[in-house]
């Protein structure tokens, strides 16, 4: 197990170097620089522009900038945002809870619907229910998130007026950021003006959760179904039936327990996809999280913010994937007890 962890960690270093290099180059390939983007149409004297670039350290040769950046990263310093002048790490940590909250609910939504759908589809294999679920999940899987989000907003927010269009909270409330998780902060707030803000926050979560959770939902449903189908054909399922156990117990305990191993792995590996989805979802819903921040950073050519944000997200995704592999071992007694 230790060896396994070490090999995986060993792979992390080159991956990181690749990501650092890639983000560094890609953002600079986008035409324009931070100063040009900020002044926009107004224009600026060439002299002043160079002075500002010099201030930001962007007039140095690229390789100097790169090694300066890498040196900072190695010391845990992601640099300072060009626009806000705040440390990138601080910015990230302020915005990250919003993304985490959304991602958490999206996965919860996807798992709590996808698991039962997959299980029932497997048990009723070949039935109309099975075909419907698999058809829908194929649709969900290939749903363009941007379009799907706008569609839901049009239907539920614009036409029906059931859900808010954007943001995490109505403008009537002013909730101090304590944890950064809106559902917790609204509960912590004892200002009488903020009564009802918790439900308001929940209300704001619904559509983004559905939009971000759609692809994982489809993946989880399909994966659960195929894992269950495999497990249901195993000898020990016949044994469980021969013991006189009820069919619910056979499926929910004996089969699901074994099918869960690949399913949990898939859920964990969805985290990378989820981050990509979060960028789009946050943009559609003006959700003030990491995704929206990254997109805005591209627009402002905020090189340090973008480089740092992508790097931290990559680190998180890799950590989660590693954790999933370890969890896989924990869930699977054949691996857990190997010495």
């Amino acid at each position, binding site marked *: 197990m230790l060896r396994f962890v070490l090999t995986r960690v060993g792979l992390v270093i080159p991956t990181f170097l690749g990501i650092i290099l890639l983000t560094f180059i890609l953002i600079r390939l986008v035409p324009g620089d931070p100063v040009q983007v900020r002044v926009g149409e107004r224009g600026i004297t060439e002299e002043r522009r160079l002075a500002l670039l010099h201030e930001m350290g962007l007039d140095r040769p690229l390789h100097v900038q790169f090694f300066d950046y890498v040196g900072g990263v190695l010391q845990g310093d992601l640099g300072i945002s060009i626009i806000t002048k705040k440390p990138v790490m601080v910015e990230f940590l302020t915005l990250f809870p919003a993304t985490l909250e959304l991602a958490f609910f999206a996965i919860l939504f996807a798992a709590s619907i996808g698991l039962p759908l997959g299980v029932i589809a497997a048990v009723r294999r070949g039935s109309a229910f099975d075909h419907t679920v698999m058809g829908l999940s194929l649709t969900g899987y290939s749903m363009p998130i941007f379009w799907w989000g706008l569609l839901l907003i049009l239907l539920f927010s614009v036409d029906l007026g059931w859900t808010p269009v954007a943001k995490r909270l109505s403008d009537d409330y002013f909730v101090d950021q304590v944890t950064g998780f809106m559902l917790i902060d609204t509960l912590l707030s004892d200002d009488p003006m903020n009564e009802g803000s918790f439900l308001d926050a929940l209300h704001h979560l619904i559509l983004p959760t559905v939009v971000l959770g759609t692809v994982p939902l489809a993946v989880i449903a399909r994966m659960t179904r195929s894992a269950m189908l495999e497990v249901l054909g*195993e*000898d*020990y399922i*016949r*044994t*469980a*039936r*021969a*013991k*006189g*156990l*009820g*069919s619910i117990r056979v499926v929910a305990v*004996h089969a699901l*327990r*074994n099918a869960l191993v690949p399913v949990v792995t898939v859920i964990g590996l969805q985290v990378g996809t989820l981050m990509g989805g979060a960028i789009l979802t946050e943009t559609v819903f003006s959700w003030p999280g990491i995704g929206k921040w990254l997109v805005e950073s591209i627009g402002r050519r905020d090189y340090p913010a973008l480089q740092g944000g992508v790097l931290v997200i990559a680190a998180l995704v890799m950590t989660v994937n590693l954790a999933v592999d370890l969890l896989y071992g924990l869930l*699977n*007694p*054949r691996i857990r*007890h190997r010495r």
Partner: protein
Amino acid sequence: MPLLEIRNLAVEFQTHRGPFRAVDGVDLTLEPGELLGVVGESGSGKSVTMLAVMGLIAWPGKVTADVMRFDGIDLMSLSDSDRRKIVGKDIAMIFQEPMTSLNPSFSVGYQIMETLAVHEGGSRRERRRRTIELLEQVGIPAAASRLDSFPHQLSGGMCQRVMIAMAIACNPKLLIADEPTTALDVTIQAQILDLLVSLSRERNMAMVLITHDMGVVAETAQRVMVMYASQQVEEQPAERLFEQPRHPYTAALLEALPERALEKRLNTIPGVVPGIADRPSGCVFNPRCNFAQERCRIEQPLLEPKLGARVRCHFPIRGDVS
């Protein structure tokens, strides 16, 4: 009253080539405590017959029978939930592959205690005590320390002992053992077989022992049922069957036994068991039968008492053939 009574059992599966009768016309009566051997080549329907008794034939498989009664209870008209009160408790079954027949995700202790919990209830402590006792009865050393073991930590023989412990947990009246030793080492096979036979004797527990091995049948069974291509072709008390088989297929099976081979060469039955699609008309065995006549190719024989046996043959063997 017989413990198990079956008349005209048939099991039909839907295959992409149309319906297929995996079991066709099995009649069986089993007395309490009796040990019945079921033999026949692979694919002859032995397992499916017994799975039907257990109610384990899944849809779209279809089970029909004129009579299927266990201990006075009509199994055919039983609801699923009532059947589950009998299956696992009064009728238990163990299978060919002990390693894969246990759930890899649960400890063996849990799996035995689960059976007890479902059928007998009782306190947790009581179940634990019973489980240790059961493991001891099936000859697992240091039983208490084995409760928390997972199946993959045990050998095949040990897994089969655990399966047996699970099967006898609620003192069943009938134990069905479907080739319980086929997957095990030769040295372990005899031990497991001895264990099963002695459990059956001690507890007056009837047992159906499915096997390919005529030698095993000779050593253990009181009565033998022979199956061929979905059909029951012969049934006799073991001793008489070995002395005087009535069906040409049984005779050929016995001649194939190494210790019976008259010459050095091992006798095998020419031809193969007909598959799903190519069941012959008339007697299913006629293409391979040395004694087949015109009638055998046209008219299907019935399972009838003839010459002191129950045999499905127009021309059962009369004299001594071996």
